[in-house]
């Protein structure tokens, strides 16, 4: 997966060499400039959560290098936190595999909503799919790049910047560990705030209001009925059934 990312970067670099025209460089620079501000909330959130992950890894006996490797290879916030317990248990890779499927099953829905945006972008698509986290999805699904910006580079930079923040956060966490003085309790709320803001933006478009409400109501019902640990699959089933049942009215 790391290799996929690196390959994409190499391809981009080669492309850059081939097309020495200034237009290309300007295009890439513009895409970066437009993409970056959208990732700032994720910067704060991923640094905080990444640091948290690094610290927890450190207390389980695995240093910064291992945290970075985990973040590079897995790139999934919730699964990395959940998996820390596995690292102090006997070796069971198959368990780890099934656990990651279960914890991340919601990502299937993300792919379904990204066909229109990610198809036709060439090889970069593979990296975009690898890096489709909750946070990246919430940005790329809600935000459309401005007309004068190259879509391909725009989406690449959002995903790549998010990936970088996550890796750097894990590194800092592993390195500083308990030395950290700043009381950061509650900083992970930045992600809740990010989703709230994106939600407000989404439901401003009239047609999105009912699906948005369906998401909140179904997820809440699933949490109340099944409890926080088992809500994910229940919520997904409820959302799917409700959206499909309301197809005629929502379309």
């Amino acid at each position: 997966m790391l290799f996929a990312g690196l390959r994409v970067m190499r391809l981009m670099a080669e492309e850059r060499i081939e097309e020495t025209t200034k237009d290309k460089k300007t295009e890439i620079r513009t895409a970066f400039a437009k993409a970056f501000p959208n990732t700032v909330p994720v910067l704060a959130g991923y640094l905080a959560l990444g640091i948290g992950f690094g610290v927890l890894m450190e207390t389980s006996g695995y240093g910064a290098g291992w945290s970075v490797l985990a973040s590079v290879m897995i790139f999934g916030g919730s699964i990395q936190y959940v998996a820390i317990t596995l690292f102090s248990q006997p070796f069971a890779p198959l368990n780890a595999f099934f656990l990651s499927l279960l914890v991340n099953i919601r990502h299937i829905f993300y792919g379904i909503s990204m066909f229109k945006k990610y198809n036709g972008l060439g090889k970069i698509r593979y990296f975009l799919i690898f890096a489709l986290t909750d946070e990246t999805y919430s940005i790329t699904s809600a935000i459309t790049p401005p007309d004068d910006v190259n879509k391909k580079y725009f989406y690449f930079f959002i995903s790549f910047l998010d990936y970088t923040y996550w890796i750097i956060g894990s590194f800092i966490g592993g390195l500083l560990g308990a030395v950290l003085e700043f009381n950061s309790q509650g900083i992970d709320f930045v992600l809740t705030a990010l989703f709230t803001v994106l939600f407000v933006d989404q439901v401003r478009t009239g047609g999105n209001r009912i699906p948005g409400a369906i998401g909140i109501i179904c997820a809440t019902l699933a949490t109340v009925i099944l409890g926080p640990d088992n809500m994910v699959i229940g919520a997904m089933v409820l959302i799917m059934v409700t959206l499909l049942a309301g197809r005629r009215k929502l379309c």
Partner: protein
Amino acid sequence: MLSGTELVLTFLALGAGTLLTRAVPFVVFPEGKKRPPIVDYLGKVLPPAMIGFLIVYCLKETEVTAWPYGIPELLSIAVTAGLHIWRGNFLISIAAGTLLYMFLIQNIF
């Protein structure tokens, strides 16, 4: 403690599972192949529904039947959403909501 090799293999298993959940839709409906209309319908209505889901997912551990009854979360979300509807500045809304939440849980609740 796992050995280095075991740890790397565990990371690999976790990464493979995660990647699989992200790649399945793109493998089932490859580029250029016609998708059933129902899939495109879902692609249109899922983003708002899933962002709603993610808000609840972030808050799922909040204790609402005992003190502080989820008040810090509710207040901070209200401020974030309110500011965003009022001013429409993405970063201001997020920063204000987050700082308020940190202040509330560190000093008041």
